[in-house]
């Protein structure tokens, strides 16, 4: 089978970002917190591959460490929101009736609630932190996964092997665990990949506004916000984290799209 182009490009971008993030755990060219004011705004050279920022910190080291933070936040948020949402979707499909209606209407309300507003609320109550950014992004993921899981689960519930499981005496929860979940894994994983891209963007936006990671922990969003005041002096400080965000968001978005095309041929759009 020929792999779709979006899957390949997405996989390459994701591999680059994940590789950089993983590498930064073990090694960065320089200590990304190391200040060196005498060497600020250094031009790219053999020592500082992309130069240094207004405090003389190495840009490459900050960008890779930022990748690590973005990935960690996105992973935690998607895992948390994804599992709660998927569980709710499974529950709604398993019980049906008014429970299903209730869960889906609550999901609609969650959908209508802006993530940024929720994050600002959390920050106002508990103070801005990476943990609160994770919670806010996880929260907006819950209704997304609840919808995807419920729609896929309702389809699986009509299958004859589910009727056979009922005839065998399994209850709804055992059927959800043994048959529904394994058979909705593909669409849920596809959604998770796409939501990963959304989460990276959300994290960058929250950090940019100062609602995410706090100094000195580097994230792409914070680098952008710090570079903003220096736009005319040193535009490269904003360009590189911006490019990183674009690469990561596009990478996961394309990977998710490609995975969907591969796993569900019915959804392949006309080109």
């Amino acid at each position, binding site marked *: 089978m020929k792999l779709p182009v979006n899957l390949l490009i997405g996989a390459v971008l994701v591999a680059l970002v994940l590789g950089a993030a993983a590498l930064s755990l073990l090694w960065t060219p320089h200590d990304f917190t190391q200040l060196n004011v005498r060497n600020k705004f250094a031009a790219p050279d053999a020592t500082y591959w992309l130069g240094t920022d207004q405090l003389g910190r190495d840009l490459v080291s900050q960008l890779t460490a930022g990748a690590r933070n973005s990935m960690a936040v996105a992973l935690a948020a998607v895992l948390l929101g994804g599992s709660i949402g998927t569980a709710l979707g499974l529950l709604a499909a398993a019980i049906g009736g008014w429970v299903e209606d209730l869960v889906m209407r609550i999901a609609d309300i969650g959908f209508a609630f802006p993530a940024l507003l929720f994050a600002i609320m959390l920050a106002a109550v508990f103070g801005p932190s990476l943990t609160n950014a994770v919670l806010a992004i996880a929260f907006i993921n819950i209704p997304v996964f609840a919808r995807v899981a419920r729609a896929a689960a309702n389809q699986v519930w009509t299958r*004859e*092997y589910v*009727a*056979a499981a009922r*005839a*065998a005496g399994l209850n709804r929860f055992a059927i959800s665990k043994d048959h529904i979940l*394994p*058979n909705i894994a593909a669409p849920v994983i596809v959604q998770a990949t796409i939501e990963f891209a959304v989460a990276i963007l959300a994290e960058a936006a929250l950090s940019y506004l100062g609602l995410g990671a706090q100094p000195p922990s580097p994230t792409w969003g914070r680098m952008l916000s710090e570079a903003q005041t220096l736009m005319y002096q040193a535009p490269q400080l904003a360009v590189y984290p911006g490019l990183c965000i674009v690469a990561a968001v596009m990478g996961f978005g394309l990977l998710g799209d490609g995975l969907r095309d591969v796993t569900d041929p019915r959804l392949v759009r006309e080109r």
Partner: protein
Amino acid sequence: MILEVRNVTRRYRLPRQALLSAPPVLVAVDNASLTLERGETLGIVGESGSGKSTLARMVMAFERPDEGNIRFDGHDLNALSTGDLRRLRPKFQMIFQDPYGSLDPRRTVGWSIAEPLRVMASTDITRRVDEALAQVGLRQQDAAKYPHEFSGGQRQRIAIARAIVTRPALLVADEAVSALDVSVQAQILNLLMDLQDELGLAMLFISHDLAVVASICDQLMVMQHGRTLESGPAQQVLAAPSHPYTKSLLTAAGA
């Protein structure tokens, strides 16, 4: 008497047509009755939409009748508690129409066959799965394979193995051979009849194909639009059909 269905009616509410009118009601099964003795086969014939599958789903206690009652081995299925019904389920099993849809594609064949045994907390699962595979003419090694590795006929054998592994007293077969090639149909029908002799199974055999039903049934019931048109010993219904619809079915079957 293993199964007694008495005056069972099932209605479905259809989607509302206009805001202020009451939603139309479809009577899927209208006042149906039947009795089935141990070891006997009752055939239910009818076109799609005749209510035969709804009747089967009610016999399997997948849904409740609006009126009437269904007794299996003396128990009123709709009066049992959830737990009691679950404990009784191994005694009545079902095989389905679509051999591609009745097995979970993500589970091995052995896992699927063992499913009802795990619910029963059976202690000798492996031995009983092997025995069931042998009874339907499959090999022990097949238990480790996935459904997509088998043909339609073989899958139907697997579905039958899952249905008989609990040693049921009643087997409900809903269009169990309709999706199969004619030659494979004959093999599966023969297998079902052999198993019936071997295990003393009562069978409720549902089909739109009178020729298939005529070949294996003791009793016959003809349904159309939810109503029972006629019922009785298969020989009698086939030899002297009293309803014109049965006659047209007979002609269609080439008898």
